[in-house]
């Protein structure tokens, strides 16, 4: 913890992105903040080593993912993928129902499959980068992506979700 200024600068620039990623993983903002806090504490503890890394973002993402997967393994984990109205206005083009539908669809996926979709399509990671973040092979990432998309399509067909989120492969 010798370079707190560097840590602060890094976190200030990445906080928003980390929170959004965590939100898509866990489904509610409070838990997302908990997960990000956990990740930031771990990042700070090892900052002297982390700051020398070539790709700090990848490390931070990995810590966040671990925090979330770890949280999910706990028996008392708080699953809150329910129809909960956000306390902020929806962004143009997607109404509240659309946004909730996305979260609901993600919520029904197994954890690692959900993580694959979030990493690939929200964080824009390549197959290789996603594999590294999750500690699995690129083949696993490809298969999890295909299965995840397939599951989303199936559920969309079952629930008749809005046209805007009818994804095509």
């Amino acid at each position, binding site marked *: 913890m010798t370079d707190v200024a560097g840590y602060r600068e890094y976190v200030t620039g990445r906080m928003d992105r980390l929170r959004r990623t965590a939100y898509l993983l866990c489904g509610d903002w409070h838990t997302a903040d908990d997960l990000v806090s956990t990740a930031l504490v771990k990042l700070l503890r090892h900052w002297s080593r982390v700051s020398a890394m070539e790709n700090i973002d990848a490390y931070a993402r990995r810590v966040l993912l671990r925090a979330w997967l770890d949280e999910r393994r706990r028996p008392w984990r708080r699953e809150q993928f329910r129809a909960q109205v956000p306390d902020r206005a929806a962004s143009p083009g*997607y109404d509240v129902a659309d946004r909730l539908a996305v979260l609901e669809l993600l919520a029904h996926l197994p954890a690692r499959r959900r993580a694959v979709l979030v990493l690939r399509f929200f964080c824009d990671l390549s197959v290789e980068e996603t594999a590294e973040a999750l500690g699995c092979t690129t083949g696993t990432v490809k298969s999890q992506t295909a299965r995840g998309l397939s599951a989303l399509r199936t559920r969309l067909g079952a629930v008749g979700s809005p046209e805007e989120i009818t994804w095509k492969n």
Partner: protein
Amino acid sequence: MEELRNALHAAAADPPPTGIDLDELIAGTRRRTRLRYALGTTVGALAMVVGAVAAPTVLAPSGGLGAGGPGAPPVCPQVTPTTTARPDRTGEPTLPDEPCGTAAGRLTAALDASLRTVLPGWTATNDEHPSGPVRFARQAVDAAPDGYLADVDVRRGAEFHIVLVQVSTHAGIDPATACRQQTLGPADTCQVHVEAGGEVLLTGTVPTLAGSSAGLGGYWVTDLRPDGTCVTVLGSQALTLDRITRIARTPGLTLFP
């Protein structure tokens, strides 16, 4: 794919204001790190001197090398080559000959039972990644007196707190001057309670403590036992001073069974 991408971005758009206070997080983590490695040591002048010479450690493997699960650091660090000279610890109390693995297992069992008694209905795990059962591990820093540390995460529903438990030797602590010798912040407190039988309890507060859902400060209790064991417990104020004291006074948490 682009539609999925857009949908994910839209779903995470307009986040509410974060509850994360970066200043608090940094201050709390620094405090916790300091406490983790030096709480027991700052209760004595000797330890403060040693703490100023913090250096990587070389711990002799004196027992089994237990592990807390895949990826977890070993309970008993193995010897690794180093060029760093160890601080002169002549005259400092040393650990008994009990093998590290045996002692860590015994202390873990005692703490586990104590947590079940003192915090019924709570679930305790270690606070490392990956988390697993509560466990003591040999401290790998020369800044602190030889001892064992358990970094525990206790949970009940959505409420969670971190409890740090350090079992070490007295390290030359003088109860009469212990509070004056501590590196206290302006809002920290420290009190000395002399119990019957020679046991001395040091108790105090810290204003902020990371790793708690309550966002409160913490209590710490150091139990200086007549047998030479020093037990220090740090936990959120939400757990109450009484409970933290009971954990610190757990009879099985001793280096001299």
